[in-house]
């Protein structure tokens, strides 16, 4: 029978299955960061259990780490906030005690956001199950992986057993055909999809992204797209293997070599949905219809093209939805029917596991080159996703473009995506952000987040308000 990519990935990892369909699924790669792991390591220790397979673990510190003044003190002493420092040091101690395939501690040359670090080191390989105590683990689905976020109890479960107890999800195919217009990116595709199916549209599904527009995306673009699958409610999203996948992986530190590489590639080539495979739901979008997107509310589904206006709750018939819109507009300080391009911003954030890879920085820099951030913008931050991304960007001279335009060029980390460190919005401040969540308070209590692509963030930085990047290119 014709199988979907998801069927193949699932089947390849079932260790044991109960009559009700509950299965024990083997985990190949376990990514670990400082925020969701301490209680799991402690639980393991208290129960007197040993980790099952240390070589599955790749760890880094990213959420709490500061993005500036790394050299002001030795090691973790450069982290001012004592509780953040304690969490980072707890991870250091846990990995020291337990071991790992790789650990990129604070300030390491390869440290960075866990979902940037895994793929760029070849620690994420096609056909793997990849888990992490972080919902954006869906990012790794770009490599045809079954990759999803887990809670801390499950982190402990994977540490102790190398398995998870799972039930198979339903399958959804999202096909985007045609060619993306100039200035339209994977981020816009992701937001347009969420705008279409809603933030709960993918709940209970594993999403496969396919179609010529997806095939045309680089691995960076595919990661951006799969990263946002969770914002569409799906625990995971993935893209089938093709030449782009294999070309990306060749020569990465943990990629196989020699004969094993050839054997791996032969297997990876099978990681596609068979002709005629059946999905539980199919959604189709035309790439040509997608314009640069801007969110206006407090949920990623509250999104419109940059050419549109802020929606009017008076036109919504569902009372719960209407009230939700009114609450969002009030929180965001917006008036219905205002053109998106008239919304002025206070801060700009280019970074996060959605959009902090080299391609994102190049795209933003292309817009910024020879231009200046508007005087009304209080802070514009560029935060590379990892030490390796940062170094490459500097080799290409992108840092100089950012700085000349008036951006601050920072050290890698999650930064203002969730504002656990010092990078954050003040109450009422409005931000053009390349991150993935515009929830209330996400970037700082009272902060107002608008999700956009890196190009759109750059265009907004220059204009001081949202602007259609297609006119700036």
């Amino acid at each position, binding site marked *: 029978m014709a199988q979907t990519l998801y069927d193949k990935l699932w089947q390849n990892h079932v260790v044991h299955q109960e009559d*009700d369909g509950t299965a024990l699924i083997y985990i190949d790669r376990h990514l670990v960061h400082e925020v969701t792991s301490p209680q799991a390591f402690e639980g393991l220790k208290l129960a007197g259990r040993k980790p099952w397979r240390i070589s599955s673990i790749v760890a880094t510190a990213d959420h709490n780490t500061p993005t500036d003044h790394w050299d002001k003190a030795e090691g973790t002493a450069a982290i001012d906030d004592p509780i953040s420092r304690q969490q980072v040091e707890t991870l250091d101690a846990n990995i020291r005690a337990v071991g790992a395939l790789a650990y990129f501690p604070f300030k390491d040359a390869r440290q960075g956001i866990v979902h940037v670090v895994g793929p760029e080191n070849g620690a994420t390989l096609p056909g793997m199950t990849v888990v992490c105590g972080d919902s954006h683990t869906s990012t790794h689905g770009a490599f045809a992986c079954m990759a999803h976020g887990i809670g801390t109890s499950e982190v402990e479960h994977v540490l102790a057993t190398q398995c998870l107890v799972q039930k198979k999800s339903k399958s959804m195919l999202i096909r985007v055909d045609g060619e993306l217009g100039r200035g339209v990116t994977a981020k816009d595709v992701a937001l347009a999809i969420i705008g279409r199916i809603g933030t709960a549209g993918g709940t209970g599904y594993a999403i496969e992204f396919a179609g010529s527009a997806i095939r045309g995306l680089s691995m960076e673009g595919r990661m951006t797209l799969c990263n946002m699958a969770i914002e569409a409610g799906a625990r995971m999203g993935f893209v089938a293997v093709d030449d782009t996948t294999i070309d990306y992986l060749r020569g990465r530190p943990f990629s196989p070599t020699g004969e094993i590489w050839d054997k791996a590639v032969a297997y990876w080539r099978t990681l596609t949905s068979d002709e005629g495979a059946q999905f539980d739901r199919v959604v189709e979008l035309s790439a040509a219809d997608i314009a640069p997107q801007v969110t206006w509310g407090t949920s990623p589904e509250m999104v419109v093209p940059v050419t549109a206006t802020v929606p009017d709750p008076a036109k919504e018939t569902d009372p719960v939805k209407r009230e939700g819109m009114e609450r969002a507009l009030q929180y965001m300080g917006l008036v219905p029917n205002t053109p998106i391009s008239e919304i002025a911003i206070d801060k700009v954030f280019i970074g996060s596991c959605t959009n902090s890879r080299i391609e994102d920085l190049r795209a933003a820099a292309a817009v910024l080159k020879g231009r200046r951030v508007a005087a009304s913008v209080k802070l514009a931050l560029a935060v590379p996703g990892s030490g390796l991304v940062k170094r490459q960007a500097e080799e290409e001279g992108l840092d100089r473009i950012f700085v000349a335009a008036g951006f601050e060029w920072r050290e890698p980390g999650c930064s203002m995506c969730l504002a656990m460190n010092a990078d954050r919005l003040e109450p009422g401040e409005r931000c053009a952000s390349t991150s993935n969540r515009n929830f209330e308070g996400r970037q700082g209590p009272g902060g107002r987040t608008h999700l956009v692509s890196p190009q759109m963030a750059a265009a907004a930085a220059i204009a001081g308000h949202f602007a259609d990047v297609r006119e700036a290119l």
Partner: protein
Amino acid sequence: MEKFVKLEGLVAPLDRNNVDTDAIIPKQFLKSIKRSGFGPNAFDEWRYLDVGQPGQDCSPRPKNPDFVLNQPRYQGAQVLLTRQNFGCGSSREHAPWALLDFGFKAIIAESFADIFFNNCFKNGILPIVLPAAEVDALFAQVEATPGYTLTVDLPAQAVMRPDGKAMPFQVDAFRKECLLNGWDDIGLTLRHADKIRAFEERRRVEQPWLFAQ
């Protein structure tokens, strides 16, 4: 994990779609390396008028009188009633820890986000999905009736209203067993240790690239 069998509890209504885990427990409280003590900061940004800091005593903080869980009639609630896609966003298990610490043992909604739903079971919280019409009716009854309680009967897989109406719900057989017995998942999985080992050995031979040292 605490067992969950039957619960009769006061119901608190949170009439919103898409309540995310950032709202349930804001990020500054995730810096803790413990599993407990998150209750006073559950819904922190909605519950208090100031900005909360980790480690702070919350009792003198100014409360937001408009936030529903601050109303005297809902104090001591054990059942949370809400709408669609509850628990969306971040995978933080601190969200169920905070809700449990606050006192909630069951959550009734039209739908839940996957990861949150899963995390509830790991902590002895029962998440219950009911049809929109029944959730609507419950909201109307809760708001009209001070002291409104519901009985959640896990063995019978039903929520009982005070007027005698029983609303059946679905729950996975495996998860139900775990909740009823308060079982530790890891112990259960380790019963299959031999199978896991055999699977792993086969994999090591067939796909050696997955086992880089």
